[in-house]
């Protein structure tokens, strides 16, 4: 198959409706140009997913019932009227409670409904601290999303003028939203920011793009902030480097530098800055986690003891919130010489009481500046002799029915090597 034929057949192949499915994919394997086309097509289709969600009101069914009643098919029934005016008569506290309940119900419905019709892709979950509001691109109203609530392609996400929020994308990228931020989510590696400020943490090797009105900021594994207001964008890089690009030009900004760009103009040259100032507003500092093993050489089939230490580097108590139905864990990732990684799970030893808002929730609290250590044993390393690496992951959880990517930790220690020698 040549590139032109593949271009004609690609969409059908993506949908599983091409008779030349395997030929298309074989060509994609060998042809970077067509792979780029496939990638672009995927992006375009994800963008298109963002519009037109529709949930009919009661009105059409009321009309059908009225028509059926007039034909004598059903007994006439009093139709509910003025239902939507009810909230005007309620005091505002009730409205707030009702809004929270409605938001929770909407999210529960979103997670649990099993419609055979195509659903928008889940691309992120709300973070464990701060408040973010979510609205469909096609809707006008906003809802407060509970921690851990799922965000889908096409959702518009915002924080209030005083609040800040946090979300975690399925690509593993975490995004803190400063107050007054409005952005739209399209896929796990791309967001469009209308206004406000975000702090992005992308692990090495993770590609991510923030698009604003005036520029596109591309990264591969780094930490940086983007501030967008009135057509101007400012990018500050904490770690790694990012590329800012628009139609007029591009610059690369390295750690400890900042650069701005105005709409319709080329990005300005980067200048030195103190990145600590740019991230002063961010929500949760990353806890530091370290791992020590009882030995660097063990005999095949024997156990290892691991000591995990978690440090709160900030001046305030740090709490990590796990929403109801979700369990906090420590995890260990063990990578061997032959197989892929295996995982060992350890229930969190630090767990405080639930909150009033969510009685099922659990919170892990660590005092400012304190370190918390615990020991646990890792299972017998019975696999082949050779070099293994072990790392500890601070916080991982799994909600029932949650997509698989939520089943990963947020903070991982540096890997520790251990050599497994042959059993005697």
């Amino acid at each position, binding site marked *: 198959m040549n590139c032109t034929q593949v271009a004609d057949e690609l969409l059908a192949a993506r949908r599983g409706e091409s008779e030349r499915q395997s030929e298309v994919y074989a060509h994609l394997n060998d042809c970077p140009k067509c792979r780029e086309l496939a990638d672009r*097509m995927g992006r375009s289709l994800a963008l298109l997913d963002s519009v037109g969600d529709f949930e009919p009101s009661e009105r059409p069914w009321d009309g059908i019932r009225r028509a059926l009643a007039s034909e004598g098919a059903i007994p006439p029934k009093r139709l509910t009227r003025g239902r939507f005016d009810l909230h005007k008569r309620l005091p505002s506290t009730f409205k707030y409670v009702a809004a929270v309940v409605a938001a929770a119900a909407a999210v529960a419905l979103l997670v649990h409904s099993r419609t*055979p*019709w195509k659903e928008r892709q889940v691309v992120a979950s709300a973070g464990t601290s701060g408040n973010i509001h979510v609205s469909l691109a096609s809707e006008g109203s906003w809802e407060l999303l509970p921690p851990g609530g799922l965000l889908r392609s096409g959702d518009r996400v915002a924080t209030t003028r005083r609040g800040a929020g946090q979300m975690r994308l399925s690509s593993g990228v975490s995004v803190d939203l400063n107050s007054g931020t409005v952005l739209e989510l399209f896929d796990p590696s791309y967001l469009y920011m209308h206004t406000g400020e975000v702090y992005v943490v992308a692990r090495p090797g993770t590609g991510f793009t923030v698009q604003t009105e005036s520029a596109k900021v591309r990264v591969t594994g780094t930490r940086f902030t983007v501030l967008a207001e009135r057509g101007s964008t400012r990018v500050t890089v904490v770690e790694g480097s990012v590329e800012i690009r628009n139609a007029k030009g591009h610059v690369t900004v390295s750690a400890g530098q900042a650069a701005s760009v105005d709409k319709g103009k080329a990005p300005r040259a980067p200048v030195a800055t103190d990145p600590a100032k740019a991230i002063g507003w961010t929500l949760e500092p990353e806890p530091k986690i370290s791992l020590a093993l009882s030995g660097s050489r063990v005999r095949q089939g024997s156990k290892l003891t691991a000591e995990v230490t978690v440090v709160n580097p900030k001046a305030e108590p740090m709490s990590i919130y796990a929403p109801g139905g979700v369990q906090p864990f420590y995890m260990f990732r063990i990578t061997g010489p032959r197989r892929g990684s295996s995982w060992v799970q350890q229930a969190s030893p630090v767990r405080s009481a639930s909150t009033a808002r969510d009685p099922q929730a659990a919170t892990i609290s660590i005092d400012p500046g304190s370190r918390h250590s615990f020991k646990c044993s890792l299972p017998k390393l019975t696999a082949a002799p050779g070099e293994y690496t072990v790392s500890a992951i601070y916080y991982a959880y799994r909600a029932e029915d949650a997509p698989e990517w939520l089943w990963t930790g947020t903070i991982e220690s540096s890997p520790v090597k251990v050599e497994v020698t042959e059993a005697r």
Partner: protein
Amino acid sequence: MASDDPSDRMLLGRVGGGDATALEELYRRYSKPVGAFLYRMSWDRELAEDCLQEAFLRVWRSARNFRGESKVATWIFQIAKNHWLNVREKQSRHAGKLEVAGAARAEALEAPTEPPQAIESKELGAKVRAAIDDLDESHRMVFVLAHYEGMRYREIGEVLGVPVGTVKSRMAASERKLRNALAHYLDAEVVR
């Protein structure tokens, strides 16, 4: 699209016999996808709901005529599509070219109640809609049914009464046109 649920046929049989609760169950199953199809064709919630109501009243009145040659869902979509084409024809006869894009844009730009900050007027959602709007009616119908409703090409062919090959080529042309229209947002290829 959903597999042909045998209970759909049972329900439709009961509808044909005048059982309103069976119609209610069919409505519960298909009002959302059929409504969404009508909404994406019109970008007008009120009009989409009116058409949805009329389509299900037609299901009620013509359930006895269902010959079982297609899935029940496909048949309901056919009814909705035919009704939409009638409505559209009437509207364009009376009002010249139907101006729906304006309504869609106005709706997308509605200010959110909370949080209060104004959304930039260059709403991305509105641009996406405008791009879909610019497709020919026949292409747009194919694209909406395939992309948003998740229908197979063969089923779309049944709903629209055109060969599968036509569906496939219309779909490819629509996708290409939309991709070009959204090029600005797609220049964000990931660096890996």
